[in-house]
């Protein structure tokens, strides 16, 4: 108990817990739309591009002589992630290159470019590992402010335009025929996804960023039947695994990002195992799922007529 109080009064840990809470809330909101659009790997692609942005920011910072020399890394990631996300969306909507090839190009280009530019900028492999796997234990006051602002933006847009995002993600052609600004909405989702990636990058690193967006949604859709509840349950799962993972690594020396993602996967396994039991209970309580429609064929004896 003393240890928990100590953890909660440690200012470094307070900042880290707040960032984890915000990321746990925001990432699954965007993840829900990505899963619905069958673009689960989009976050990964953006994360890889964000690494190039980190390296470019780093290079710009060391050339300009700003202190600390990585002050421009996160802004660089934001810029590159947004450009990358919009580029993926344009390629997807034009349908010129198939989506998975476009994503593959971004994956490899992003990582290779990031590592190359990082070495040009004089960064060490320890710096690189911080961005690849997260470095939540070193969140500064400025990082926290940026995280709060971006998370508020992601939550505001992601929840506020929920029905419109649902409409374009569920049935793009209907949305277009209904007069919805489909392209603007698609680009907005891509930009919000990019912002989420740069926020979550701090917690789990670019290599695992997509897991925080997608795995809570995968857990939620095992146990829900509506879009709204899927999003709500995913947000709850995201918050719980982020806070639990961070707390565990406060007491035991382990990578916070990896611990959080392993916890999320564990939640998925548990939900998948519990699902048949829930289904059985629900089925026992519910009615016959078949619509009450008379037979199309005459079957002797005419059961339906006798009963009626």
């Amino acid at each position: 108990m003393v240890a928990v109080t100590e953890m909660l009064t440690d200012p470094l840990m307070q900042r880290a817990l707040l960032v984890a809470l915000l990321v746990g809330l925001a990432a699954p909101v965007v993840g829900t739309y990505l899963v619905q659009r069958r673009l689960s790997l989009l976050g990964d692609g953006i994360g890889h591009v964000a690494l190039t942005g980190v390296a470019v920011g780093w290079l710009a910072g060391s050339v300009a002589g700003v202190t600390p020399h990585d002050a421009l890394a996160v802004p660089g990631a934001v810029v590159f992630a947004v450009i990358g996300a919009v580029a993926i969306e344009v390629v997807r909507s034009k349908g010129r290159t198939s989506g998975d090839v476009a994503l593959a190009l971004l994956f490899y280009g992003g990582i290779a470019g990031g590592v190359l530019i990082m070495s040009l900028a004089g960064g060490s492999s320890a710096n690189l590992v911080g961005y690849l796997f997260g470095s939540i234990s070193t969140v500064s006051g400025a990082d926290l402010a940026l995280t709060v602002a971006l998370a508020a933006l992601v939550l505001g847009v992601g929840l506020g335009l929920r029905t419109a995002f649902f409409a374009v993600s569920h049935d793009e052609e209907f949305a277009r025929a209904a007069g919805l600004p489909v392209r603007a909405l698609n680009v907005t989702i891509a930009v919000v996804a990019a912002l989420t990636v740069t926020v979550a990058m701090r917690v789990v690193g670019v290599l695992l960023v997509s897991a925080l967006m997608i795995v809570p949604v995968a857990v939620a859709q095992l146990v829900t039947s509506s879009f709204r509840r899927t999003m709500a349950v995913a947000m709850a799962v995201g918050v719980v695994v982020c806070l639990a993972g961070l707390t565990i690594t406060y007491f035991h020396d382990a990578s916070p990002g990896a611990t959080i993602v392993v916890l999320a996967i564990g939640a998925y396994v548990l939900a998948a195992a519990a699902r048949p039991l829930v289904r059985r209970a629900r089925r026992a309580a519910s009615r016959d799922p078949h619509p009450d429609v008379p037979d199309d064929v005459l079957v002797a004896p005419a059961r339906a007529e006798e009963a009626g």
Partner: protein
Amino acid sequence: MTAAIDARGVVVDLGGAPIVRGVDLAVAEGEAVALLGANGSGKSTLVRALLGAVPLAAGSVHLLGAPLGPRVPWAEVGYVPQRVSAAGGVPATAEEVVLSGLLHGRRLRPPRRGRARALEALAAVGLADAADVAVRTLSGGQQQRVLIARALARRPRLLLLDEPVAGVDVPSQRAFADVLGRLVAEGTTVLVVLHELGALGGLVQRAVVLRHGAVVHDGAPPRPAPEHAGEGHEHVHPHDGEEPARETDVAPAVRW
């Protein structure tokens, strides 16, 4: 009387192939028109072009008096696509799908009484009980009715339907014909793509027949081609993919 749909010289190319080749189509307000033609004659593509869902290669379209674009009063235009586009990865209830039908260019959030209107529209297609059921667990016919409810929720003045009763069970077809009959009586303009007139035959005042992307008939609803009129005739629709859907004729009691 103004034209609800006024399309002139509409040409649509998809992947370099001319799918619709110079179609003129005028539908007056309050009229109920069937768009007929064989599979692959360009009916669905024409409807999608009328709604701006596929680009025009040539020609012009006016809907409810405005040129295709943001000036069309989209809130008053309803569309029922042929099939649920591949259901997304996340479950959604019938009510959520219908609620999305209330949005348009000037409304990105559902109106305050949106839920009540969604439930009303579901009740109109006989699915009031299914509001909270995940769409993916409904039968094909019920899913089609959810899409019809999604178009009805916005209380359209102009309704475009793409084979709304293909693969729908006979009672659902009749229920749908009643709903549509009521809308037509109230003055809703209807353009409905059909493979054959069937249960909706009594509702339409005019039929336009497409062949190879061009209009070959525009006038009184034609009689079905002889080989389609037989009692035991079965349609197998190539676009139905997964299961060879048997189109339900209304009259016969035995369809196997």
